[in-house]
C-alpha cells in the first residue's frame, strides 16, 4: 500500500433528483420521485428530499401509499454525465479525480490539502461549493478511497480519519457502506454479518470460500490494509500552472492577464524539463461548479510564452464566464522533447532548427486567423489522374518524397479548380482543336490519353485526350476532349508555362 496517501470521497445521496431540480427550479419542494422499468415492473429509483419512498419500491405501491407524488422517468446516462462533469470540476483541487458510479466521486488529495488550509478546510470548501450549486453532498477523508467512500456514505458527516484511526472508524459501519453488491450483501445477512466489524472478526479462509475473495479485497481496502489507486478522469498533464483568483473574474482582459502569468510559469517549467507543448488547454473553473475549456494545438513543439499566449488569446472570447471564474488552470496536455535553444553559426544544424521552429510559429499564426484548411502544402501523390497528382497536407508535417516518374510529363503550372467547358472546333474526329472559343489555335501538341480509374466503384468520368495548345493571342493552355460517346466535350484544364 502506498504510504501516506490521502483520499477524499464525495457522496451525492440525491444526485438524480438534484439534477432535475437544478434544471427546473419549479420542481424544488415537490414530492418528486423517479422510476425506471425493470422487466415487467416499474420501480422507484430515487426520491427527492423528505419524500418517504424507498428506492426499489414498485411505483404502483408508492403511488398508493403516498398521495401527491410527482413521477418522472429516470435517466441514468444523464446522471453519469453529470457525475463526470462534477468530477471534472473537482480537478480544481487535485489533478487526480475519478467518478465512482453511480453517485460518488473519489479524489486523491495527497499533498493538495494545504492549498485550502488543511484537510478540514479543503473538505468544507468542496462541500460548501457543491451545496451552493444545488447538490446534497456528504464527504469524508481517509487513507484509502474505499474507506473514505464508506465513511461518506454511512459515517459521521465530515469525518476525517488518519490511517491509524481508519479501521476503528469503519468497523461499526453497516456492511452496505463498502458496497459489496446486492447478492453478497444478502448472503452475508443470512450468515448474520451486518457490519464491517462482523465481517472482520470472521476467519478469512472460510469467508473467502463462502462469500468470494472479492469481499475480502473490499474489506482490506475499507480498513486501510490495502489500497486500490483511483483511475483518474484524465491523466495528470505533464505540466500545468494554476491561478486562484481572489475575486471571481468576469472580463476577457482579466482572463488575458491571468493567461499571460500562467503561460510564463508553464513555459518556465517546460524549459526546465526540456519539453515543448504541442497542445494546451486553459480550463476556467466557474463559481457554479462547471468548467469552460479552450484549447490550441501547435504544429511544432514550442515553449515560446508570447507565441503560445497569442494563439490562446484569440479564443478567450469563446469563454462564457457566467457568474465569475475563480480558478484558471493552464495545462500542456501533449508535450514533446525540445532541446535547449542554442545560437549557432550560419548554416549549422542549430540555425536550421531555429528556422524550422520559426516556420512552425508562422504556420500556427496563419492557421489561427485563416483557418486550418486555408494553410496547406500540396504533396506529390502517385496517381495518373491529373486532379489527384497532389494531396493537401499539413505544412508542418514531414514532406513526402515524390514517387517515381512524378512530374516527368509536361504539366500546367496552374490548374483550374475544375475544368472549364469551352466551345471548340476540331477538323478530325480525334484530332487537335483548331479553334477554342473565339481564338484560333496556332499549334497543338498531343494527344496524351488519360483513362479514369475504371477499377474503382462509382460513376467515373470518360477518357480524356489532353492537348497542349497555343492560341493566336499567345496563351499556352492545357485542354482536353472528353469522349463519352457522340461529340467530344472540350474543357480548359490549366495554364502552361
Amino acid at each position, binding site marked *: 500500500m502506498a504510504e501516506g496517501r490521502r483520499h477524499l470521497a464525495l457522496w451525492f445521496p440525491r444526485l438524480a433528483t438534484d439534477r432535475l431540480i437544478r434544471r427546473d427550479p419549479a420542481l424544488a419542494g415537490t414530492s418528486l420521485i423517479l422510476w425506471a422499468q425493470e422487466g415487467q415492473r416499474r420501480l422507484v429509483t430515487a426520491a427527492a428530499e423528505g419524500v418517504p419512498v424507498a428506492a426499489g419500491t414498485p411505483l404502483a405501491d408508492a403511488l398508493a401509499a403516498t398521495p401527491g407524488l410527482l413521477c418522472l422517468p429516470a435517466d441514468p446516462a444523464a446522471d453519469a454525465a453529470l457525475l463526470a462533469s462534477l468530477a471534472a470540476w473537482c480537478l480544481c483541487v487535485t489533478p487526480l479525480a475519478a467518478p465512482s458510479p453511480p453517485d460518488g466521486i473519489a479524489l486523491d488529495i495527497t499533498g493538495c490539502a494545504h492549498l485550502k488550509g488543511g484537510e478540514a478546510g479543503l473538505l468544507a470548501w468542496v462541500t460548501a461549493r457543491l451545496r451552493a450549486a444545488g447538490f446534497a453532498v456528504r464527504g469524508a477523508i481517509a487513507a484509502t478511497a474505499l474507506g473514505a467512500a464508506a465513511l461518506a456514505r454511512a459515517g459521521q458527516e465530515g469525518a476525517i480519519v488518519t490511517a491509524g484511526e481508519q479501521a476503528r472508524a469503519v468497523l461499526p459501519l453497516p456492511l452496505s457502506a463498502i458496497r459489496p453488491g446486492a447478492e453478497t450483501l444478502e448472503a452475508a445477512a443470512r450468515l448474520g454479518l451486518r457490519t464491517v466489524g462482523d465481517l472482520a472478526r470472521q476467519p478469512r479462509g472460510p469467508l473467502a470460500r463462502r462469500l468470494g475473495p472479492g469481499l475480502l479485497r473490499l474489506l482490506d481496502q475499507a480498513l486501510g490494509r490495502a489500497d486500490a489507486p483511483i483511475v483518474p478522469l484524465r491523466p495528470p498533464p505533464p505540466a500545468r500552472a494554476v491561478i486562484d483568483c481572489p475575486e471571481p473574474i468576469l472580463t476577457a482582459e482579466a482572463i488575458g492577464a491571468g493567461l499571460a502569468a500562467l503561460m510564463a510559469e508553464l513555459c518556465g517549467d517546460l524549459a526546465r524539463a526540456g519539453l515543448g507543448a504541442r497542445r494546451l488547454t486553459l480550463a476556467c473553473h466557474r463559481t457554479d461548479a462547471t468548467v469552460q475549456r479552450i484549447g490550441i494545438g501547435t504544429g511544432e513543439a514550442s515553449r515560446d510564452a508570447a507565441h503560445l499566449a497569442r494563439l490562446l488569446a484569440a479564443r478567450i472570447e469563446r469563454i462564457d464566464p457566467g457568474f465569475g471564474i475563480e480558478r484558471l488552470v493552464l495545462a500542456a496536455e501533449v508535450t514533446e522533447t525540445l532541446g535547449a535553444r542554442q545560437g549557432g553559426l550560419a548554416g549549422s544544424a542549430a540555425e536550421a532548427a531555429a*528556422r524550422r521552429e520559426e516556420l512552425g510559429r508562422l504556420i500556427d499564426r496563419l492557421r489561427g486567423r485563416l483557418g486550418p484548411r486555408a494553410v496547406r502544402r500540396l504533396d506529390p501523390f502517385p496517381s495518373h489522374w491529373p486532379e489527384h497528382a497532389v494531396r493537401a497536407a499539413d505544412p508542418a508535417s514531414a514532406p513526402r518524397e515524390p514517387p517515381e516518374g*512524378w512530374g516527368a510529363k509536361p504539366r500546367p503550372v*496552374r490548374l483550374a479548380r475544375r475544368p472549364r467547358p469551352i466551345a471548340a472546333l476540331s477538323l478530325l474526329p480525334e484530332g487537335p482543336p483548331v479553334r477554342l472559343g473565339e481564338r484560333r489555335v496556332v499549334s497543338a501538341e498531343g494527344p496524351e490519353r488519360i483513362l479514369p480509374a475504371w477499377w474503382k466503384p462509382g460513376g467515373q468520368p470518360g477518357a480524356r485526350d489532353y492537348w497542349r495548345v497555343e492560341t493566336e493571342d499567345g496563351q499556352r493552355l492545357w485542354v482536353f476532349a472528353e469522349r463519352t460517346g457522340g461529340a467530344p466535350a472540350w474543357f480548359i484544364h490549366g495554364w502552361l*508555362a
Partner: protein
Amino acid sequence: MTQSPDDRAALVSVLRGVLARHQAAPRAGVVGVARGIDEILPGGGLARGAVHEVLASETGCCTAFCGYLLGRAGGPAAWIAPPRAAGLPWPPGLAALGLDPAGLILLDATGDDALWAAEQALRSPALAAVAAVLPRLDLASARRLQLAAEAGGTLGLLLRPEEARPEEARPHEARLHQDRVGPTAARTRWRVSSLPGAGAAPHRLGAARWRLSLLLARGGRPACWDVTWDNGRKALILDETGEVTMHG
C-alpha cells in the same frame, strides 16, 4: 587612453558580436533571374528583403515566372491567393521550373486577410520568398509590406492585375511608358508576356519563351528581354540578341 589587455579582450568580443549580427541579420543579397539580366539589375539581381511587382496579365507565364523565382530563392516559400482564384499553383508543373513541392505553402486568403497574411509571411525569417495575389493595394499597405520584407529578409512578389490596356495593344509588345498600375513602393516592376515557342510548328509547341519587361527599377533603368526556358539545363536563357529595344 591606454588599454589594458583585459579591455582589449572585451573590445574584441564586442566587435565579434557586431560582426556576427551583421552576418546573421538579413540573408542579404539577391536572387538571380538569368545570366545577362542580372548584370543590368541594380545590385546584380532581385533584391531580397524587398517587394517586387509582377503585372499578372497572362496567367500561364506569370505563374511560371513567379514559381521560377520562388524556386531560385532557395528555401520555403508561400503563395497567397484568393480561394476563388482562377486556378491553383500546380506543383507538378512548377516542379519542372525548379520549385520543390515540399517547400511551397499555399494560403487561401483574400482582402484584409490576404494583406495580413502577406505581412506575416514577409516578416518571418523562416520563409525565403512569398508570392501574393493582391488585387487592391494602396500605397500605405504597399509600404507596410516593403518594411515587413526588409525585417524578414524575404523576397516578396506581388502579383497585381493590370488595368485594361488599349484595344490595339498586342500582348507581345511591352508598353513601357504606359504604366497603368499607379505609384508603387516596390523595388522593381515586371511584366511577363508570352512569345511563340522556340521551334514551334503546328504540331509542336516548342520551349516556353517569354518577354520580360522591367518597367520600373529603383536605382536602375527600364529594360526588356526575350528569354527561353531550357528544360534540360533548368535555366532561363537570354536570346542572343540580348536586350530588346524599347518601343515607345
